[in-house]
């Protein structure tokens, strides 16, 4: 069958850096073509070329065999190419129906908006997506991420999209929502829509895709039928080398207690938490979204100071009322949302790396630029941050490299307690293994590590001890040997059948 959208020999540079080198890609009606690669491999740029956001420097784009040049995303949409980005581009204050038909709403003969038709059409589109439960009059801002995503897909369909590009659609979804989304993708595929599907999740790729194309460092590596390739082969295509052991946990000697919490609470979000973190120990916290894991970290770090209970450092009681105090006491927090909480994205790598330790590289409050630059250079090297240099802006880096900047910035403060919240969310296999190895190394140097993660394999693979949180409390504790997917999984779900359901539905 003839491809509906084909790219041939496409190259694109930004400020002299090649983001895409001679990449070819095509997608046929009724297939799901997966696009894979590490962060920074050029997937986002390729998507943006297809969506008309970037014009390629060389190479051509064909729609149904005819060469086209998109001057804007609007022209790509008119050609039937719709994109659902990771950051959803909806208007939170408008209703579901208004969002779907924004810009191409049905009109009455008087040229006024035809509200009845708009709502009926929106209903029909959502029903096609098997989303009968979604109210067309609901305000989009009140919906969960999963539902907003369905609105975005319905919007694409309302414009008769023949090609649908989906950029990591399941990254922010719970397992149940992800499965529902995959059903939607299958429906669309069966209706003859061509789908370009970007994801890091292997099981999804193998369950959905017809073909898979891998990019590495902006270059085309290869395209395969999904039946003709194994997961291991895919990973080595992406990384360009055999992958190291996935969870390189090294056994280290566990030392004296560093951080102790005694009956710590914050309002009703964190309730009566007691725990001890020892030098050299990695303690994993498992739990569903909304179980109080992040809230506990925020309380220890002083963003939401404890309302009752006691925190001890080296056996001495301390009060932590803001992050500055926590930092000065040697507590570091690598936050969940790196874009918002972890980085100052418009600033340079140098400025980001020094932000948490400015006092140490300044004399009489004047920042020593030479010291700062050499610190940045050293950290870039030590953490393997792929960048043009310390003066590159952080927002130009890929997700994995941004995460390394956050980690480097905090490790550079030489903390004694390192709290990591979802340390590998949304980053690729290669960078993930590097961050795990680093975590292991830091624990080996005597740091106490508290790791929060939604990925059970990560928690089980990296932790010396696993704590399970539910409804703001610690409900179970397992030693490394006793922590199995079954035991931890059961503890995560138990007693929460009633309230966790509600938490999961809207907290996401």
């Amino acid at each position, binding site marked *: 069958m003839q491809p509906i959208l084909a790219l041939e020999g496409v190259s694109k540079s*930004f*400020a002299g*850096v090649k*983001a895409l080198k001679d990449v070819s890609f095509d997608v046929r009606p009724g297939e799901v073509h997966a696009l894979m690669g590490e962060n920074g491999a050029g997937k986002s*740029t390729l998507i943006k070329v297809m969506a008309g956001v970037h014009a390629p420097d060389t190479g051509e784009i064909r729609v149904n065999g005819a060469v086209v040049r998109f001057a804007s995303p609007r022209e790509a949409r008119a050609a039937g190419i719709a994109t659902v980005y990771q950051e959803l581009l909806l208007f939170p204050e408008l209703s579901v129906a208004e969002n779907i038909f924004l810009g191409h709403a049905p009109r009455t003969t008087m040229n006024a908006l035809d509200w009845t038709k708009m709502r009926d059409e929106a209903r029909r589109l959502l029903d096609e997506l098997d989303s009968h439960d979604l109210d067309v009059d609901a305000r989009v801002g009140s919906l969960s991420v999963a539902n907003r995503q369905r609105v975005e897909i319905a919007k694409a369909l309302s414009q008769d999209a023949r090609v649908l590009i989906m950029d990591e659609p399941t990254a922010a979804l719970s397992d149940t929502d992800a499965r529902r989304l995959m059903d939607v993708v299958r429906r669309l595929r069966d209706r003859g829509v061509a789908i370009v599907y970007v994801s890091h999740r292997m099981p999804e790729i193998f369950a959905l895709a017809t073909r898979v194309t891998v990019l590495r460092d902006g270059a085309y590596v290869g395209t395969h039928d999904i039946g003709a390739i194994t997961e291991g082969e895919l990973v080595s295509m992406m990384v360009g080398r055999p992958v190291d052991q996935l969870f390189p946990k090294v056994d280290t000697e566990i030392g004296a207690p560093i951080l102790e919490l005694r009956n710590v609470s914050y309002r009703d979000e964190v309730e009566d938490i007691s725990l001890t973190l020892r030098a050299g120990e990695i303690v994993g916290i498992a739990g569903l979204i909304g179980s109080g894991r992040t809230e506990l970290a925020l309380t220890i*770090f002083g*963003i939401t100071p404890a309302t009752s209970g006691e925190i001890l450092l080296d056996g001495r009681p301390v009060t932590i009322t*803001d*992050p*500055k105090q*926590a*930092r*000065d006491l040697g507590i570091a*927090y690598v*936050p969940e949302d790196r874009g*918002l*909480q*972890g*980085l*100052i*994205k*418009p*600033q*340079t790598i140098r*400025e980001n790396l*020094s*932000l*948490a330790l*400015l*006092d140490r590289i*300044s004399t009489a*409050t*004047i*920042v020593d630029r030479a010291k700062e*630059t050499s610190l940045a250079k050293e950290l870039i090297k030590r953490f393997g941050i792929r960048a043009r240099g310390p*003066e590159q*802006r952080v*927002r*130009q880096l890929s997700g994995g490299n941004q995460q390394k900047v956050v980690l480097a*910035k905090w490790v550079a403060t030489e903390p004694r307690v390192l709290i990591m919240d979802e340390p590998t969310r949304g980053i690729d296999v290669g960078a993930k293994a590097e961050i795990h190895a680093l975590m292991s190394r830091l624990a080996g140097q005597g740091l106490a590590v508290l790791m929060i993660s939604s990925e059970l394999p990560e928690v089980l693979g990296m932790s010396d001890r696993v704590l399970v949180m539910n409804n703001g409390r610690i409900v179970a504790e397992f030693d490394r040997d006793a922590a199995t997917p079954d035991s931890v999984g059961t503890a995560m779900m138990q007693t929460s059948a009633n309230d966790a359901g509600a938490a999961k539905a809207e907290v996401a």
Partner: protein
Amino acid sequence: MTATLRSLLRHETILAILLVLVLFALASQSDRFFTTANLLNQGRLMAEVGLVALAMTFVIVTGGIDLSVGSILGLTAILLGVFWHNLGIPLPVAMVLAVFAAGIGGLVNGLIITRFGVPPLIATLATLALYRGLAEGISQARSVRGYPDWFFVLGQGEVWGVPTQLWILGALVVIAAVILGLTTFGRATYATGANEIGARFSGIGVDRTKLLIYTASGLVAGLAGVIFVSRVSTTRSDMGTGLELDVITAVVLGGTSIFGGRGTIIGTVLGLILMQALKNGLALSGVKGDGTIVVIGVVLILAIVASNLFSREGDG
């Protein structure tokens, strides 16, 4: 290093070129423009706006705004007159007290913004009315005159041939440039403006930074108020009305992003000089007041558009 320097100075470079062009154009229009006497006199006239603009640069870099500076200036002027004339406090003490009161005014702005989370635009719009109202209430529409001669040194005198207030402005320009450009406090200011949450999560005292900046904004407006009184020899309650607009224009013209996170003192100084040169030069060339405002508006838009065009960066 050179790359940042280039990107930092890009707007400032455009502005400097623009300034040179404007100076040449104005000098060719009127032979009275490019004289030492006129230039020094213009320096005298722009000192008050300039002082306030220095602090305003910090305020806008944090992503905030301070609309109350004109009212604080007026309130300081009134308090100076009342302290000295009505309460009989010695003039030097009255000057210090008046500036101190201005600092309190700024601190109140900062507290409303940081403690109660009121957006700076709303908070200072409210205190703009509040402080002006206080000034009018206290003054009862009476002006204070008859200050001693030594007091006029500040606003009308010269030191080594240069107006006194230009020395003060110069000193504060250097101090402000060092603080914003080189110190940890400057870094905290930029980080706060670029991403307040990220700054807080990095252990930056965001609230403390803002409190200090709004307090400094009040103090500087107070200082400008004292200089104003000294320059015009009288105290009236409507002094400094509309000052905030001139100040904000100079800062924004100087390349400080109204969204926060970006801006320099050098830029503000260039913006200030450009604005004053246009006002004076156009007046000398026979352009009426309304025309001058139109020209300043057009220059402001052109400068911002030009720097946006040149500073576009790929997002990779």
